């Protein structure tokens, strides 16, 4: 079955179906993380005491990870721009860099997590660590999900470029929208958990 409106816009929405679909999905993602941010506020306002994130967590590592994710957002958008410029080899380079930077983020996160567990700090230790592990854990899963989709478009999915370049470019743009949301969530998670 052929999927309708992958290349041209649907007349009533003015959008391709993929574009509208990914934005509806991102809206649901905002509500998912919104529920967790609301839980954070509730725990913090309702708690008798609240620790300073920086005394428990590693600010330099989280700052490094912020820079890594911001850079990966730039390489992601450059991957899309390369396709718009008809330059497939540049696309492969930028998309590869985006996947690599996602991997670097996860490695840094792994070191952070293992240092916490090594010091006996677990989600069950207190409510601060519970919400820290929940929020950063869910965010980490999103990084893995984004990397999986990007890897598909870097590898086997890229065959579509030769058959239908406009559709492929649109798909990469939609994958990028998800990746930028993952970056956007981290931009708020970083000060909320580590600095305030």
């Amino acid at each position, binding site marked *: 079955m052929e999927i309708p409106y992958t290349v041209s816009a649907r007349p009533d929405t003015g959008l391709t179906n993929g574009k*509208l679909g990914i934005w509806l999905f991102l809206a649901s993602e905002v509500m998912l993380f919104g529920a967790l941010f609301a839980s954070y506020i509730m725990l913090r306002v309702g708690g008798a005491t609240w620790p300073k994130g920086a005394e428990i967590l590693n600010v330099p590592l989280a700052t490094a990870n912020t820079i890594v994710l911001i850079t990966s957002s*730039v390489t992601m958008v450059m991957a899309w*721009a390369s396709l718009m410029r008809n330059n497939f080899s540049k696309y492969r380079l930028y998309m590869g860099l985006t996947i690599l930077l996602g991997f670097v983020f996860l490695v840094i996160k792994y070191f952070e997590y293992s240092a916490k567990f090594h010091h006996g700090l677990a989600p069950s230790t207190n409510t601060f660590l519970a919400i820290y592990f929940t929020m950063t854990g869910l965010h980490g899963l999103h990084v893995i999900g984004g990397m999986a989709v990007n890897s598909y478009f870097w590898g086997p999915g890229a065959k579509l470029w030769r058959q239908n370049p406009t559709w492929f470019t649109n798909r990469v743009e939609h994958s990028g929208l998800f990746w930028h949301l993952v970056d956007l969530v981290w931009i708020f998670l970083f000060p909320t958990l580590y*600095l305030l």
Partner: protein
Amino acid sequence: MSADHAADIDKHVRAYMMVFGALLALTVVTVAIFYLHLSAPAAIGLALVVATVKGSLVACYFMHLISERKLIYVVLILTVFFFISLLLLPVLTSITDHPGV
């Protein structure tokens, strides 16, 4: 690809690089605010303002929201309304907990 189209993409790419620079600078600002050891309300307010500016830059430029179709704005306005309502819920709860205050 037309020359106009190529020039358009070049313009986009220049904007991406400027946004990249701004995001890196604002990350330094976020960390600098923390090391200033301001009072809690001032630090929280400032950090959230900087994060909102950074988030808006990502949404407007990297996610192309600056030139998107109306339907997407409609979806996002609804999302923002419910997102803010969700964040206000705990605050409203704490008000009803202490009716005398």
